[in-house]
């Protein structure tokens, strides 16, 4: 059914059994959600659609796009943007913020430990082969000191929300998490296109991310440098996230460089300028470990900087994130995160994991095999939604294939129950409809951690879909964190 523009767009909206981010009653929102619904209704479906179209046009004009490459051509696409914002109350945010800080602290402690004493492995809390045998483990990092013990300077923590409204961590992104530019741009877009929706609501601002990030990058620069030169290293304009790189470079006020712009001479890193070589002290890199230095990792990499790792190891340049962090955000390690937090911090995880069964452990494998049709089975060390089997939706043949794969290499798998992701009203062809959401807050850590209020809310635009990745048909929403009530 397609609703006409005049009816209340919420009339036909039914989130079913899922937690709805806008219609679930939350006493601590102080009426914000109701106010927002009223305002959305006042604009009406036609109004929403017209303004959304204008907003998309704006995105295209601004070139806020990612690039999809096929053989014949390169097409610039915008990340689909849904104009109905997601609301987070002040108390919810307090909890999330504390939770992701705790988690980032644990990740950094973990990384420091595995590249130094390996206490956690020696004590058997985490299986040693899971770490040392991991493809993302970098022996080059062993015994290498990083400033403040911070390996993960920028961390994106993926959260979901179950039927009860409980936030759970789905995944840690400790390598080169992306998407933060959308958080800021979405807010700008909402300010331009829907100023009336937020009028009078006190929202936590998001526009100082660049400044915070730059401050952290300056902090981590090699000691003794007076005015450290920070750069952002991008694979170049053909990278699908190029827009985000530009955005961050501009927001930070640092040069955006490509590999070819940097040269290493005498174990120091320089950039090529019209006036000659200019020293560089901190590199916020948006290139994977493997491509960073063809002299050390993949020799065929054209986007890297030969000699970079040497210079880094000499302490002449800082890299953010550090090399070798991939070992910490592995799905296999994820399962152990509650134990890791307890090990290093002596606390329980503030934000629980999604219940996870580690198939390398006998009970885990047994449980998984027994409940295969009810579980989501995920490979470890992969990302992007590929290779996943969702039990309740899988055919008998698919289940059989998954079972075989599990038995062949149990250590490569974990399983989780189907999390019923929360939903938010989303503008579709039919009208406002519930669509599943996740949330990725970003944590910036130099000497200390700072969490960007809100984060990226991704939405699965297909009905019933749980896959929120942009490459798989996901979109995004602006995330509104309400300010603490005034004292």
């Amino acid at each position, binding site marked *: 059914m397609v609703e006409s523009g005049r009816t209340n767009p919420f009339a036909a909206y039914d989130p079913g059994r899922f937690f709805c981010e806008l219609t679930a009653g939350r006493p601590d929102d102080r009426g914000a959600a109701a106010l927002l619904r009223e305002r959305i209704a006042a604009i009406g479906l036609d109004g929403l659609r017209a303004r959304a179209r204008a907003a998309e046009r704006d995105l295209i*004009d601004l070139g806020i796009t990612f690039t999809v490459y096929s053989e014949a051509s390169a097409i610039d696409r915008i990340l689909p943007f849904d104009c109905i914002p997601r609301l987070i109350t002040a108390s919810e945010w307090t909890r999330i913020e504390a939770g992701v800080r705790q988690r980032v602290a644990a990740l950094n402690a973990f990384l420091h430990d595995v590249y130094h004493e390996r206490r956690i492995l020696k004590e058997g809390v985490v299986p040693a082969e899971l770490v040392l045998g991991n493809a993302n483990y970098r022996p080059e990092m062993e015994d290498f000191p990083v400033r403040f013990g911070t390996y993960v300077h920028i961390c994106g923590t993926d959260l979901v929300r179950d039927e009860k409204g409980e936030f759970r961590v789905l995944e840690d992104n400790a390598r080169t998490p992306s998407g933060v530019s959308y958080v800021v741009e979405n807010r700008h877009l909402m300010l331009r296109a829907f100023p009336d929706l937020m009028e009078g609501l006190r929202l936590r601002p998001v526009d100082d991310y660049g400044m915070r990030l730059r401050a952290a990058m300056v902090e981590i620069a090699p000691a003794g440098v007076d005015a450290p030169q920070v750069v952002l290293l991008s694979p170049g304009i053909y990278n699908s996230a190029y827009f985000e790189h530009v955005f961050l470079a501009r927001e930070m006020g640092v040069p955006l460089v490509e590999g070819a712009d940097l040269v290493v001479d005498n174990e120091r890193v320089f950039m090529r300028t019209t*006036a000659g070589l200019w020293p560089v002290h901190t590199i916020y890199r948006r290139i994977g470990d493997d491509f960073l230095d063809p002299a050390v990792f993949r020799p065929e990499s054209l986007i890297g900087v030969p000699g970079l790792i040497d210079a880094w190891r000499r302490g002449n340049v800082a890299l953010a994130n550090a090399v070798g962090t991939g070992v910490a955000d592995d799905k296999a390690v994820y399962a152990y995160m509650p134990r890791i937090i307890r090990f290093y911090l002596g606390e329980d995880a503030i934000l629980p994991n999604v219940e996870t069964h580690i198939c390398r452990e006998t009970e885990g494998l047994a449980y998984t095999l027994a409940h295969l049709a009810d579980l989501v089975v995920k490979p470890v060390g992969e990302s992007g939604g590929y290779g996943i089997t969702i039990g309740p939706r899988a055919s008998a043949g698919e289940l059989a294939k998954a079972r075989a794969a599990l038995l062949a290499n149990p250590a490569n798998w974990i399983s989780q129950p189907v999390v019923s992701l929360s939903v938010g009203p989303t503008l579709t062809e039919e009208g406002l409809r519930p669509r599943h959401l996740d949330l990725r807050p970003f944590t910036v850590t130099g000497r200390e951690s700072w969490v960007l209020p809100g984060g990226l809310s991704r939405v699965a635009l297909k009905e019933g879909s749980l896959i929120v990745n942009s490459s798989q048909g996901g979109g995004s929403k602006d995330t509104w964190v309400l300010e603490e009530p005034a004292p």
Partner: protein
Amino acid sequence: MTAAPLLARYAEGMFWMARYVERVENLARLIDVTQSFESPGREAEAWYALVRINADEENFARRCGAVSPQAVTRFYLDDTTNPTSVPAAMEAARTNARTLRPLISTEMWKQVNQFHREVMETAPDDLEGDALSRLCARLKEGIQAHTGITEGTLFRDQGWHFYALGRLVERADQTTRLLDIKYHLLVPRGREERRLAELTQWGGLLRAAAGYHAFRRVAAATFDAADVVGFLLADRSFPRSVLLSLHEIEHHLTTLRIRYGLHGTADALERAWETRAAIEGRSAERIIADGLHEFLDRVQRDLIVLAGSIGTAFFRDWRPFAEADSP
């Protein structure tokens, strides 16, 4: 606190973005003038001159074959696969702008981006009848908006100087080529009784260089070929004259050298100075008597070398340790 100097890649991007933008403007103007001033019965010749000015004879023959107004406009305005077309130039300008995104204002990028899309949406209908002149007007207006934003938002730092160099080099090159081709179309016919017809053609040439009214104001009454050649080559206030372009090129190179200590400008400066001296040293009559084509040929070669030496000094081929490393 000193800011970091300009990345070499940015300098290159600025230079090339400006060249492509200038190219779009020149093409739009040429097409507009050709269409407004085509002589009855001699359309094909007029349109083919456009192809020759852009040194596209082979390229055109391969892609289009026979010359007709329609073929030429399609070739330059609606053929994205032709590397010398307006869409191709705009694509290149945008790619460079994308590279420069961290450096240029949001307004500037947004305008390039919008304008690029507008150019890419050119449809065959836009080349028909009166739509063509409207299209050319839109193209020119788009470039003028680009220039205005650049003027108002681009800091006058190194990047701006490279931007200016790009526009000026391209402009000087276009003006010499325009003069070369048009002059040879006109002069061999020079029988006295056709003088007026030629003057009319010169008017078309001046319009193509956007200098018609300026010239009218300078040349009080009648004029001849030498006046036009002199104006386009050596006028000191006409923005598209070769001399003024060279003069400004020198200014920008000198600023880069003095204010930013870029000593790689030496070669290019010398080249600009020599070319300028060659133009200033001789009257238009003298240049024509000695062979205008040969002279323009030399200026063009000089410009190529000039652009090359800017490139060698600052852009792609720049090898910081090449000399030290070589045995």
